[in-house]
């Protein structure tokens, strides 16, 4: 499995502990450029732990979205300012971008982006290769890294990219597609003249486009150029398991198409659906998956934000995070919470059939009732339609143990790619959904498994 890149995305300071603990389990850590710009010092610490296995997502698509997506919320509902993290990043990019976004309070037009493409390519390259090193140099441990001859360097570099949106007409979409490839070509040339690192393109698109096979076939043709090895894929809020049959089929043909032109697809936000495709026997072959600590297996491109925090648990046999009430209902329906049997006996059953990771064992020990710790929460008031409502939110301890369990299970999913054939993994998945899933998701899983080679 040496050609696979197992990636973890860093988002907030609360991720740091888990990042350091799991440093030997993952191959690379991905940071969004805005986070690097805003938290350079914290990022430097993590990069020094992961050494030359970091990747920076340049997020160049942010300049093409509505300005509201990057504005901070102001208390009195007047127009706010650009979020600090975004501004600090854009200060490292061509001046024109921040001028337009900050002063004129709008996104950039296609022609405006075209006019800065050379400068954009250069600045993105420099940011990805040199920005973090500046912070490492300010740290105490820099001299130790130098003594040990350990150079901080990215695992690979991502070329500037722009999103293909569903509301673009064909001409506009073709323009942005050509722009993406133009940026990629210039980035490859610049790289060949400088650090010669592995290069990745990034394909960001609305899932709606998966309804049109012609769009996808055209896209694969356009990316058939030399000079880059990897291509990150980020489809808006998409998981192939619960997509329509058409989207499932087109997604698989996208991966197969990229394989045929010699490119290695990486899922920018993916779950077990993508990990399974990293199996060497997969006919639609992926070469890596990234997700965050405890979440991020799919993600909307313009973040909706908000939402109430809830306790969730990564239910291993279903390979998805579910709310604790769903988890308890599954456990009760399958006899794990049946008090007619001893807690110890039921705990052993749980370890055999659900999860035996160090985190679950530390929580449950010899009594399955301890599973309730994953649901540890504190009540707080939320404004409802008719007044304040009490809700529960997870304690920080509950969040942390759920995240640790999630990462342990991810490690197990990766390990099993080497231990079992793809047919065995697929059959196991279908059986688990028959046992623990609802009728709708059972149907979706069988559809997916039939498609990927049951």
């Amino acid at each position: 499995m040496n050609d696979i890149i197992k990636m973890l995305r860093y988002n907030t300071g609360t991720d740091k502990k888990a990042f350091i603990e799991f440093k030997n389990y993952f191959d690379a850590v991905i940071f969004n450029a805005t986070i690097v710009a805003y938290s350079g010092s914290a990022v430097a610490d993590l990069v020094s732990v992961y050494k030359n296995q970091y990747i920076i997502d340049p997020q160049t698509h942010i300049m093409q979205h509505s300005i509201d997506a990057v504005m901070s919320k102001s208390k009195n509902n007047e127009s706010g300012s650009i979020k600090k993290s975004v501004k600090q990043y854009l200060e490292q990019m061509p001046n024109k971008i921040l001028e337009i976004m900050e002063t004129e309070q709008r996104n950039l037009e296609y022609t405006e982006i075209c006019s800065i493409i050379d400068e954009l390519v250069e600045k993105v390259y420099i940011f990805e290769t040199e920005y973090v090193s500046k912070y490492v140099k300010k740290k105490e441990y820099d001299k130790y890294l130098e003594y040990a001859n350990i150079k901080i360097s990215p695992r690979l570099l991502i070329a500037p990219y722009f999103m293909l949106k569903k509301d673009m007409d064909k001409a506009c979409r073709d323009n942005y597609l050509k722009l993406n490839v133009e940026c990629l070509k210039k980035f490859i040339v610049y790289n060949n003249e400088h650090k010669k690192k592995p290069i990745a393109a990034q394909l960001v698109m609305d899932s709606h486009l998966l309804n049109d096979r012609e769009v996808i076939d055209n896209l694969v043709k356009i990316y058939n150029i030399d000079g880059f090895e990897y291509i990150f894929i980020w489809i808006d809020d998409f998981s192939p398991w619960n997509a329509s049959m058409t989207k499932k089929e087109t997604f698989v043909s996208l991966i197969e198409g990229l394989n045929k032109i010699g490119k290695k697809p990486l899922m920018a936000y993916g779950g077990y659906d993508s990990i399974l495709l990293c199996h060497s026997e997969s006919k639609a072959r992926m070469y890596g998956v990234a997700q965050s600590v405890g979440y991020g297996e799919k993600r909307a491109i313009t973040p909706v934000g908000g939402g109430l925090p809830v306790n969730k648990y990564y239910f291993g046999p279903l390979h998805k995070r579910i709310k604790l009430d769903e988890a308890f209902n599954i456990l009760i329906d399958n006899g794990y919470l049946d008090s007619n049997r001893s807690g110890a006996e039921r705990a052993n059953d749980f370890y055999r059939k659900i999860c035996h990771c160090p985190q679950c064992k530390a929580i449950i020990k010899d009594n399955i009732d301890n599973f309730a710790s994953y649901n540890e929460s504190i009540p707080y008031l939320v404004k409802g339609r008719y007044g304040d409502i009490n809700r529960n939110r997870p304690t920080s301890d509950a969040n942390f143990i759920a995240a640790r369990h999630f990462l342990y299970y991810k490690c197990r999913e990766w390990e099993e790619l080497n231990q079992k054939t793809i047919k065995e993994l697929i059959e196991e998945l279908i059986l688990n959904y028959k046992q623990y899933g609802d009728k709708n998701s059972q149907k979706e899983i069988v559809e997916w498994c039939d498609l990927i080679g049951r």
Partner: protein
Amino acid sequence: MGTNISEEEQRALFIKQCSIPEKKMVCEVPVFCRSVDLVEYDKINNMITSIEFKTNNWRRAIEQVLSTSISFDYAEICVRRPKKSESIGRIVEECASHGIGVYFFDVENRKFEHSLEPKKIGRTWIVQKMQVIDYLEGVTCE
């Protein structure tokens, strides 16, 4: 009399008409990621009942009580009494299949009818039930 009544008003009327001193009524009880509209706490028998209020969407009310049912001994819904008897029959049948009790609220004369008694939930998880009771011990509904 006006027929427009919110779920909250419906609940407030229910508490006024159906409360008994032996049972503590607590509103908006947080259970998992939800807020249960009303919980009836029978301290003497150590039993708790969840009650979801909806004006019309009885299927949603059933969905909500079922999702938190492992935390309770009984589950009930309270919805507006439909005009058609077939609709009434459908609601009762569906609730009976799950062991859920039904209160119908007559909007015209502002009265509640307990049309179906709930059955004891066979899959209560004592750990979760005790967490709810701990919460109930600390609060009151005015």
